[in-house]
């Protein structure tokens, strides 16, 4: 077997190795710690792109850890959907990390920056593992690594709000994990397997023998992943956690961490549970209605906020509702819309949080009413904010339109035009709270009140890259959409 066959395992290994090397390197040569992590992220990006090309040409790839086939061993699977999510995770993490290298120096104490790199690499490695794994218990372990790293990159800032927010996130996340483990116990009790493929073969007949185990497992999985991915009534930890974290952490959490749990829910509901379950309990209806409520209420709460980062955090609750709507429609065009929205929203929300971080870096301003006239002092930053807001609202020319287009199209195809109304109404609500900031930033009469520090070139470059990506994804969306359509047809 050539070296390229081992890429599924090596992606996770390289990231974990960088995570454990970076405290050692930071102790002796401070300047070399960040390049080590950047090298590891670039290696992982190269490996995941080559996996994407392989999977497109020759179909799904299975990798057995330790040479043991399932059910004795843990299996990693790469198919087009997983390779797509893997590329998004690692690519966006690399992009946020380049921003973080400059921004962290003024947000954290000096001696903990080496530990921040460790937590960052562990977070990216565990998310890559969640996208790749084909085994339920391996999913549990990787989910816990992801949860602890995500809580830790919030609380590493060590001031009053972020400690309490991080504790709230940890407790609710631990409750989600307990429910998840109980669901795994239910499935293991009924079938004796932990592998996705073997479970899918067994569960079709187990559904007639032990239906209550499967129902309990499905309910527990929705509770677990709903808590971790901020589905509507279980979103209460998100605003505090994302608003009080350092800006690269907010970008990472809002952009990637909540999405990977939605993707894990998608994998479990489409690749583990049998289709006959949907005839007995309308699971996709439950997810669809909760997601619609989330979309509306996220925007309503965001309109009432006065702090910039808290408004962006509440906006995330609304946007993750779109992704859950894509999962809940049970139609292949909806999957295209939902996954395209994962890509667009990851880049857009990360860009918006980077803009907020740059504003705080340069001026120290956090309240929205103090942002009047800032467009003349920080033009490039506010241009990035404008393009990000346009993508959130869904203005043609940005990527946000494509995902909402496909969601609305699939709502019409399955004959439920009510959800088109919800998508349109929520876009209007998004405009109500994003547009005033943009307008008052550029067209306010007086000049900006506070003094501005110059913004480092690293941070400006990353924001320019983000803007270019959003505009490109709005105009040249055909390749990605056709690949997603092909990948989504595999599930139906």
């Amino acid at each position, binding site marked *: 077997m050539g070296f390229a066959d081992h890429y599924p395992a090596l992606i996770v290994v390289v990231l974990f190795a960088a995570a454990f090397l970076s405290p050692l390197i930071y102790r002796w040569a401070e300047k070399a710690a960040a390049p080590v992590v950047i090298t590891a992220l670039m290696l992982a990006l190269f490996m995941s792109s080559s996996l994407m090309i392989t999977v497109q040409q020759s179909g799904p790839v299975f990798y057995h850890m330790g040479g043991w086939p399932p059910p004795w061993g843990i299996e990693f699977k790469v198919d087009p959907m997983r390779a797509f999510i893997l590329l998004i995770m690692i690519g966006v993490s690399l992009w946020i990390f380049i921003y973080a290298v400059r921004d962290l120096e003024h947000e954290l104490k000096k001696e903990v920056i080496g530990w921040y790199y460790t937590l960052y690499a562990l977070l990216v490695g565990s998310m890559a593992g969640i996208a790749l794994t084909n085994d339920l*218990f391996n999913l*549990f*372990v990787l989910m*816990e690594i992801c*949860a*602890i790293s995500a*809580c*830790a990159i919030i*609380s590493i800032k*060590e001031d*009053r*709000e972020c*400690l*309490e927010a*991080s*504790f709230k996130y*940890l*407790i609710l996340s*631990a*409750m989600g*994990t*307990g429910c998840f*483990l*109980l669901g795994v*116990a239910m499935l*293991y*009790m009924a079938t004796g397997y932990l592998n996705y493929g073997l479970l899918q073969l067994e569960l079709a007949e187990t559904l007639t023998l032990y239906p209550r185990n499967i129902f309990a497992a499905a309910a527990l999985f929705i509770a677990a992943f709903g808590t971790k991915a901020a589905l509507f009534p279980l979103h209460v930890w998100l605003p505090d956690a994302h608003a009080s974290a350092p800006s690269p952490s907010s970008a990472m959490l809002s952009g990637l961490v909540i999405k990977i749990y939605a993707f894990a829910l998608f994998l479990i509901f489409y690749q583990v549970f049998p289709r006959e379950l949907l005839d007995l309990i309308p699971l996709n209806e439950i997810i669809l209605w909760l997601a619609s409520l989330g979309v509306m209420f996220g925007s309503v709460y965001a309109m009432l906020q006065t702090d910039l980062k808290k408004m962006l955090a509440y906006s995330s609750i609304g946007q993750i509702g779109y992704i859950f709507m894509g999962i809940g429609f049970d139609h292949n065009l909806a999957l295209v819309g939902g996954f395209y929205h994962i890509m667009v929203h990851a880049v857009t929300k990360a860009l918006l949080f980077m803009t907020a971080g740059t504003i705080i870096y340069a001026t120290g301003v956090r309240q929205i009413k103090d942002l009047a006239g800032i467009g003349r002092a920080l033009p490039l930053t506010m241009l990035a904010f404008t393009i990000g807001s346009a993508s959130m609202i869904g203005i043609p020319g940005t990527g946000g339109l494509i995902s909402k287009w496909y969601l609305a199209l699939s709502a019409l195809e399955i004959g439920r035009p009510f959800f088109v109304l919800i998508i349109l109404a929520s876009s209007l609500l998004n405009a109500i709270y994003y547009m005033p900031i943009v307008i008052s930033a550029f067209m306010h009469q007086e000049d900006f009140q506070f003094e501005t520090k110059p913004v480092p070139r690293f941070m400006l470059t990353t924001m320019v890259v983000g803007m270019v990506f959003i505009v490109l994804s709005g105009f040249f969306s055909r390749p990605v959409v056709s690949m997603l359509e092909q990948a989504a047809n595999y599930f139906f």
Partner: protein
Amino acid sequence: MEILSSIARNYYYMVAIILFVIGTFIMLTHANMIKKVIAMNIMDASVFLLFVAIGYAYGGEAPIIREGSDVVYVNPLPGALILTGIVVAVSVTAYALSLIVKIYRYYGTCDYDEICEIRSQE
């Protein structure tokens, strides 16, 4: 009578589920932060109990190979999964307790409702 006999046969599972519900209830409703962490441990321990009880085979013995041809062994896989699970639970407990130490230094109280009041007045 059916219910009673099935409860008597499966009382490990019943105890595990009752502990899970107790743990979740305390974790969500009681205000003291240390009680929340203890309740999280109870909840995780109950799921581990359920896992190990699933693996039991009637009349089986410990899964260490010994001489004999038709010896019934207990399923060793849940035990291996639970070792990993216990380490994960210990790590989360350690992190949560260190967070509580830091929060106590900043706010001066271990009671979550009081912390919410202090936050809402800032």
